[in-house]
């Protein structure tokens, strides 16, 4: 029989972290601080709206681009929150989560051999999606001493004449790093100087704990025409399972992305879209309340690590904290595996998000204070034992 498989996909290595996940799966009693999704339920009014839409029998396809009413509300939200101005009819596309947006943007933009700059540690899909789109991923290793922010010299050193897209994964999963206005300014200059495009994944934008709040790279003068802006409802509105995101970009890019979306997906889930109208229009207060609670937990974890004497920079975004475990002289994966086996606490090795995550672990604070406390007490025990031995 002939090989039934495509060569490119078979050459993409599965996430190296699979082994660790398998161990977690064997330990149902373990306390986990390992998830990448909110612990809050979707606000009830959003769920209620979804139920209502089902009762009304709104179970058809929407247009390929998504419900117009929803896109209009999103345009309003983006203006209100980040000062972004997008035409909801021509510059926006509703997608199946932010992840579909990442995939189809790369497919719509890359030609074979085009290089995509990927600051790491970062979410795991950019690299394989780049390869599947025929591009060449070029990681940029971010540094803990810079609080995992992208520095202009790091960017410039990675640019070649083949570079086409810079991915900007901020606020960042797994580090919690953000890029403030002052950090973005020199990056914007380089993007323009080298005529690059930016794919900015701002799915955690609403979960930013700096005084100035989240700043979108798309809001800088001259950047809208070079930016593919990705956002969605998963993290901000605690709607991961609804699979709903959106992309805003110049019309010529959206047009081509819509073709891929139309043939591969047809449209984002209809029930989710109706529910999302309520989420985007009426839930600013709910989001603010969740953000405040995340922020309290963030401070709690930071203070716990400080007390333990663990090196940990202050993360200002998402719901992750990324402490350093380098002092223990073992790899991140070894640390996490031992923590899991010896104390039954699951956290994710930094290396799951790129080689530059070595020496750190990702701890999610999408958990109740009680769970965080229980897990942190065990981590503290573990660390004390390591220091003694």
């Amino acid at each position, binding site marked *: 029989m002939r090989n039934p498989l495509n060569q490119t996909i078979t050459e993409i290595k599965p996430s190296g*972290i699979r082994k660790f996940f398998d161990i977690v799966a064997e330990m149902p009693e373990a306390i986990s601080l390992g998830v990448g999704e909110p612990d809050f339920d979707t606000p009830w009014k959003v769920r209620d709206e979804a139920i209502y839409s089902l009762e009304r029998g709104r179970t058809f396809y929407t247009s390929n681009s998504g419900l117009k009413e929803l896109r209009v509300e999103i345009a309003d939200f983006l203006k209100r929150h980040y000062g972004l101005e997008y035409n909801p009819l021509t510059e926006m596309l509703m997608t199946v989560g932010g992840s579909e947006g990442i995939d189809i943007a790369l497919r719509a933009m890359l030609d074979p051999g085009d290089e995509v700059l990927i600051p790491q540690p970062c979410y795991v899909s950019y690299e394989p999606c780049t390869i599947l789109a025929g591009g060449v991923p070029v990681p940029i290793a971010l540094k803990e001493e810079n609080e995992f922010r992208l520095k202009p010299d790091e960017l410039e050193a990675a640019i070649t004449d083949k570079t086409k897209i810079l991915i900007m994964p901020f606020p960042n*999963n797994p580090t919690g790093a953000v890029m403030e206005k002052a950090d973005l300014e020199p990056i914007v200059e380089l993007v323009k100087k080298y005529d690059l495009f930016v794919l900015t994944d701002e799915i955690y934008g609403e979960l930013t704990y700096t005084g100035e709040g989240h700043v979108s790279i798309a809001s800088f003068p001259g950047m809208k025409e070079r930016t593919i802006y990705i956002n969605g409802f998963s993290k901000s509105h605690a709607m991961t399972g609804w699979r709903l995101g959106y992309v805003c970009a110049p019309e010529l890019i959206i047009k081509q992305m819509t073709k891929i979306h139309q043939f591969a997906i047809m449209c984002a889930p209809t029930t989710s879209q109706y529910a999302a109208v309520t989420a985007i229009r009426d839930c600013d207060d709910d989001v603010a309340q969740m953000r405040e609670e995340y922020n309290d937990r963030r401070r709690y974890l930071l203070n716990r690590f400080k007390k333990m004497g663990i090196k940990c920079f202050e993360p200002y975004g998402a719901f992750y904290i990324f402490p350093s475990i380098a002092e223990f002289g073992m790899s991140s994966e070894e640390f996490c595996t031992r923590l899991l086996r010896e104390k039954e606490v699951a956290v994710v090795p930094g290396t799951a998000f790129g080689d530059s995550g070595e020496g750190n672990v990702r701890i999610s604070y999408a958990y109740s204070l009680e769970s965080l*406390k229980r897990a942190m007490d065990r981590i503290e025990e573990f660390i004390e034992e390591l220091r003694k031995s």
Partner: protein
Amino acid sequence: MREKILTYIEHNSKIDLSDLAMMLGCDQATVMNELEAMENEHIICGYPTLINWEKASVEKVSALIEVRVTPQRGMGFDKVAERIYNYPEVDAVYLISGSYDFMVSIEGHTLREVADFVSAKLSPLDSVLSTQTNFVLKKYKDHGIIMAEKHVDEREKVSL
């Protein structure tokens, strides 16, 4: 600061004060001082516990009684309210807008006990014009807490 402390203890008065301090980014002494001050100012009126008596297999009957009264000259409703809330059986008294004046919540061990309270104590009060007793059949949610079920985390253990 005060509002945040209150919001946390409203939902969990047993919260560990050092945890609370770490979340608020201050030291424990500050939180303790604020709490003490708010107790003295009677902003914090008590630390009761929310109990699902049904689960504890203890017989309890509660009722919400709508009470119409004539306010007393010079003292309005407050004097009447005082006559009512001083009874230990009374759980809560609210002055409300609408077609009656007070909502009185009472709790007893038996139906008879509650009925006796209404007929022997509440109704005969001079200012009380009429009462309507509504017995509580089931408590679904109280003080923002859903009584029926305990929340279970059904998310996957690890996800990227």
